[in-house]
């Protein structure tokens, strides 16, 4: 309809060399542009690796001699090495020719192709990977200790400058370093909480959908029960009544977010249950558990991944709301949520204290949402043009 080639079916007969040549010929100018994009990205990636290596050398040299190098610095160095390796692999692959679409491609390969064409989704993926990297490399990237207060009177409320890229907060702590360390906390909370929810949700949904009957009825009633509670209220009730701590927050977030996934998985399993491969497996005498977890569930993963991705963004926002009420991550541990909440009485006067972590939240959540949307578009055939 808009002149885009349908990537699901090859335009040429299945003769590898001819198809390749045909595609390259058909690509023409577009192929050139793609190559330049790839080269630029490779260059940027190598630049990142090299500068990372330089920074870490600098940081390692600056550490006091007697102090043991903390574990997370080793992790960061390992991550840097891995990154270098990944860049090497990417470079090698970029130099190899691209494979044309084939009829027998699996669902994941097709989805990957769609995904790559969606620029916004790719941007989301890039941001997510960047965040991952930042989280791992934080000890090398952060110029200051996030809890170091310095001479408070002289160094508080400094606007962004060369020494303090994002300014300082009321205690004279460097906001940039806190944003970096806060990334670790906020993202970890997001991942772990969503991990818990998705696991629980898949479990409940699969059991309910597969076994049906009273198991289904019981589990679904329980799901309805949990859904009837407004999540934020339940969170506040539990965290306020028991004492706020990082693990409690993560746990409660995880335990209150599984319902959507459960329903989703149940729906998928219900429709998959009657398919031939399941009947065949049963005829072969496989046990229910094995059928369920090795054959049925993996096929339900597509929508689960989408909802997980979206859930991470939502969890980060919920943690920010909890921090506003004093129930989130406790100081002095920085999390983006509690940085935004803490800076709220200086919203205009010292705007950098709230704005930078706030923007970090916004862009992270946007990235995850774009990623999730892209995954959904790529994995659901009905949504492709």
């Amino acid at each position: 309809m808009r002149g885009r080639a349908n990537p699901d079916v090859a335009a040429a007969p299945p003769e590898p060399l001819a198809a390749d040549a045909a595609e390259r010929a058909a690509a023409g100018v577009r192929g050139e542009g793609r190559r330049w994009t790839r080269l630029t990205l490779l260059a940027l990636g190598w630049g990142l690796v090299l500068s990372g290596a330089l920074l870490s050398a600098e940081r390692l040299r600056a550490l006091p001699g007697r102090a043991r190098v903390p574990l997370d610095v080793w992790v960061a160095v390992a991550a840097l090495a891995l990154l270098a390796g990944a860049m090497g692999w990417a470079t090698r692959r970029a130099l190899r020719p691209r494979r044309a679409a084939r009829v027998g491609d699996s669902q994941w390969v097709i989805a990957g192709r769609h995904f790559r064409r969606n620029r916004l989704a790719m941007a989301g993926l890039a941001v997510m990977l960047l965040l991952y990297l930042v989280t791992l490399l934080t000890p090398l990237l952060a110029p200051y200790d996030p809890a170091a207060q310095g001479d408070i009177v002289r160094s508080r409320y400094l606007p962004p400058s060369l020494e303090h890229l994002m300014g300082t907060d009321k205690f004279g702590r460097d906001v940039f370093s806190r944003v970096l360390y806060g990334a670790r906390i906020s993202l970890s909370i997001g991942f772990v909480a969503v991990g818990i929810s998705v696991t629980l949700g898949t479990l409940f949904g699969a059991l309910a959908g597969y076994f049906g009957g009273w198991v289904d009825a019981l589990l679904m009633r329980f799901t309805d029960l949990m859904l009837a509670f407004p999540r934020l209220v339940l969170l506040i009730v539990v965290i306020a009544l028991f004492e706020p701590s990082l693990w409690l927050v993560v746990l409660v977030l995880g335990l209150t977010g599984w319902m959507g996934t459960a329903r989703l998985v149940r729906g998928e399993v219900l429709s998959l249950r009657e398919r031939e491969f399941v009947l065949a497996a049963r005829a072969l005498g496989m046990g229910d558990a094995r059928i369920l977890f090795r054959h049925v569930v993996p096929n339900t993963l597509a929508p689960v991944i989408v909802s997980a991705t979206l859930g991470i963004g939502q969890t980060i926002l919920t943690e920010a709301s909890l921090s506003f009420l004093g129930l989130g991550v406790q100081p002095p541990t920085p999390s983006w949520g509690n940085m935004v909440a803490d800076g709220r009485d200086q919203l205009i006067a010292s705007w950098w204290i709230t704005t930078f972590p706030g923007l970090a939240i916004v862009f992270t959540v946007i990235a995850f949402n774009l990623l999730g949307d892209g995954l959904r578009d790529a994995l659901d055939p009905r949504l492709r043009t």
Partner: protein
Amino acid sequence: MIAHPFSPRAPHGWARPAALVLLLLLALAGCRDPDDARSAQAAGDGEGATPERGGVAVLAEHIDINQPMPLVFESNMDGDLQDVLYMALTRGVWRDGRLVYLLADESPMALAERYEYAGPDSAALVYHLRGDVRWSDGQPITAHDVVWTYQAVRDPRTASPRQDYVEHIDSVVARDDSTVVFHFAHRYPEMLSHSGLGIAPRHVYQDADLAQIRSHPTLVNPDQGRLVVSGPFQIGRWDQGQQMVLVPNPHFRPQPHLDQIVIRVIPEATTRLVELQTGAVDLVRPVPHDQIPTLQAQGERIRLEREEKRQYEFIAYNPAAFAPFADAEVRRALGLALDVPGILRALQMQDYALPAAGPYPPIFRDLYDPERMRPLPHDTARARQILAAKGWRDSDGDGVLDKDGRPFRFTLLTSAANPRRADVSQIAQQQWKRLGIDARLQQLEFNTFFERLVGREYQAALGGWAVGLSPDLTELWGEDSPFNIVDYRNPEVSALFRQALAQPTEEAANRYWQAAAARLVQDQPYTWLYYLDQVDAVSNRLRGIKIDTYGAYQNTWEWWIPEALQRGTPTRAGAAPADSPPSAAASGDTAR
């Protein structure tokens, strides 16, 4: 190509609704406040100008009023409202560093014309009441109300928090309608204070079930004047969680100048300050200290007043939960490691707080002794010496002091509700870290925090106490007091307490209190951090308000607003107040 409204050549598809929305927003335009220009002029009027009638004062508080009745009130907000609603036998004011009890000739809130000591040992007080005072429902206020009030407080069914008032009272008897006698167990300095409780109307409550008095209809629905009071204002309207409107009590003399006082509940601090700056609200208390510079920049429109040094903040050490705290020298070292003046500067509180030396802030003229009791200096070297002498060294190079294999690591609790204390705890943590002391912070929601304190389930805690206006230290330091949160026991100090309580006069008792305080400071069961002024911000519109150590609601009948600044807030249905200024918009409302 079919031309359709959504093609790029015809952009008005979305533009039209957008324009509509814009128009709508413009139509919601509020007029600028026509009073702004006038207020700039009127602010020139100084104090001492003649009060003018009328006007509505709007106050912002962060929590709602709960149970504004002398027998049962608990919160500070309710306590403040007692000053406005109920008269008492005498009226306390803070003058020259001590609490003075005024009688009817000096304060319209005092019921008694005169009093005298009577009986053997002068352990009885006889009050002679004014004859001309009435409740808001017209009934006369008599000695029988006083008797009933004190009986109700003593009755265990009421579970009144005012037990300290009646602890030493044997009986309260009405000789006649205007004379009441208090029989105390012995003569002691607080007799006047303890007979100064707000008086409740007997005729309203005498038939009520005391155990259920908190659900009495006058307390559940106090508006429209159903709550019978004796002070200058009564409750006109109460929208729970939103606002309480106080209207003048027709039976109070002198009649207040204002038409209404509206107390609005605004939980979020930023919003309270915005409302103050836009002029929607006239008083905000308290103001966080780091907002003071912003408010000062407002210049003429807002002035800042202090309620002096009515609280102090401290770090309490619980030896039962962390053995190293049992040694007074160690506690002293922890105190020496803190740079309190630096903390105050860091939090921009240096103008409003004073490093604390002990339990008596400077407001107590007779008890504050800067010579004998000084705040701990900031002396990291000395702190290190003390700890080293006690055997604390960093033997494993991890930056934390240890002894016998155990690190100097404990948890410091604070209340999450108080951002200032949270801030101080973070700075304290850093300052201790330089010494090798590892303090972990934990913020708890207020109820839980308080419970942990009282239950002594904490290692160290950063808290604050409001300073009572009496010198009695036994609440916090008495051996059996539930609020002795560090379980402080020192026979010498307890003996001094006993002697102080046994003295008949204030002057005699004060010597013992001072001695006890000095001993306390030596023992350092707390590190006293600083005494704090509560800063209130008042719009210059509101005149005649007296704010000092005693509070902000002391003289509500004297508050007034210059006529030029009265906003013409409607106070009666239909009738436009005669003094309303002409407003620019047709609707006559300002959207503010």
